[in-house]
């Protein structure tokens, strides 16, 4: 690592300014340490030889720009990641919606969809799936394309099944997919309740009102002030008494919305308190 060409902080700022000017994607509020690492990584992976060429390619080659975005945003995800979180969702959050005529859920930063299918499975087991709709969004069209195929590597299924069981799952996990060579294909019933679409948390607006918003392991990539803006966007998009769920290491503390919310037990889930009259 240390002997390779290093891209300076200043060059990174140039690149971010280019990307904003030419494509309208604003990464300037992202945490620099992670961004630097990702930019170096794609520079190395693609065997780029000079910063000038790399920059030129990003500006002039739209398909390379797509790759650049795919590589600098971290897409790692899992089904039923943090089983304790899903257990709380199953036992304490979703049952509140039992009497609602319709449940709208926004999953922001859904990556390749593992989380969306996990939530659909829990909804199904609670007999809520029929009246639910999950809006799963991400900045990156490439991951959404993968997500809509509902196919994940078979090699992951053992781990996912273990996660599912420790999250309180009551069925045989393998009943949710059919094995197709090295891929596990999840059923259409789950997929029919998920809408995958692009949405950029930095620049796009609120598009509906939800009972539950989940955004896990996305805010860690943003600096504090961008985090606050995004939390405000969530607040505008959440019904009174709705729930907001973040990743294990994320919080709404210190943000302007915190006083309207009450935290649920030990998970990173908050409930919006009704307006006082």
């Amino acid at each position: 690592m240390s002997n390779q060409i290093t891209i300076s902080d200043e060059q990174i700022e140039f690149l971010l300014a280019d990307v904003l000017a030419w494509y309208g994607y604003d990464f300037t509020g992202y945490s620099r340490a992670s961004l630097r690492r990702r930019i170096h990584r794609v520079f190395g992976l693609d065997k780029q030889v000079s910063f000038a060429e790399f920059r030129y390619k990003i500006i002039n080659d739209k398909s390379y720009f797509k790759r650049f975005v795919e590589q600098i945003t971290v897409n790692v995800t899992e089904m039923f990641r943090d089983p304790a979180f899903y257990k709380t969702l199953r036992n304490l959050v979703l049952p509140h919606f039992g009497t609602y005529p319709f449940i709208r859920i926004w999953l922001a930063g859904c990556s390749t969809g593992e989380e969306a299918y996990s939530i659909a499975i829990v909804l199904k087991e609670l007999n809520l799936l029929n009246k639910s709709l999950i809006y799963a969004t991400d900045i990156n069209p490439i991951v959404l394309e993968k997500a809509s195929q509902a196919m994940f590597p078979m090699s992951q299924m053992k781990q996912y099944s273990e996660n599912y069981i420790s999250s309180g799952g009551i069925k045989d996990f393998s009943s949710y997919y059919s094995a197709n060579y090295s891929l596990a294909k999840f059923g259409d019933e789950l997929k029919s309740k998920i809408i995958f679409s692009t949405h950029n948390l930095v620049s796009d607006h609120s598009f509906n009102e939800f009972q539950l918003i989940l955004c896990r392991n996305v805010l860690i990539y943003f600096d504090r002030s961008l985090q606050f803006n995004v939390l405000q966007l969530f607040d505008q998009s959440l019904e009174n008494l709705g729930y907001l769920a973040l990743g294990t290491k994320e919080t709404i503390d210190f943000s302007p919305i915190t006083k309207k919310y009450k935290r649920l037990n030990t998970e990173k889930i908050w409930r919006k308190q009704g307006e006082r009259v």
Partner: protein
Amino acid sequence: MKECKALIIAGSAGSLEVLLKVLPDLRTDMSFPIIIVVHRKQGADFLLADLLSARTKLKVKEVEEKEEIMPKTIYIAPSDYHLLIEKEHTFSLDYSEKVNYSRPSIDVTFQSAAEVYTNKLACLLLSGSNADGVNGLETVTHYKGVALAQDPSTASVSYMPEQAILKVKIAHILKPEDMASYINSLNQPLTVQ
């Protein structure tokens, strides 16, 4: 070392026992932060913080993302995230691919810290069974920081410090009983205003 702005202690299998031995003898007016990155199973993070804080009067806490890094404090990298350091001396967490089959990866934290603290960084690699941390130490020396390793003959799993000594110019090879006094010697008494 002229001035130490941060010390990172990292390891894998067999490193906890070393930490438990070293912590009680550290000065409590430490002029720099101590950041601990150890490989371990997911969850139960509070256990490690509890274990360590029972051995020292220094403040021990698990890292929170975007938190300001303060002296006189021992920070523990949470499990299952990479730990990065920002230019403005705050922590960032990153849930990207594992590096050397590890998350947190020691290489990732050493490299990120080296870019920020350059020659004012000391990194100590303890006992462990893989080579995570070795490339990171290389980067630390590239930025003229101080690379340290546990004496492999004292490590319950010697592979990690052995690899470090083989591949990187290590400034001091330390036995556990000598670590605290070495670390204390890096302390710069805070100047009285």
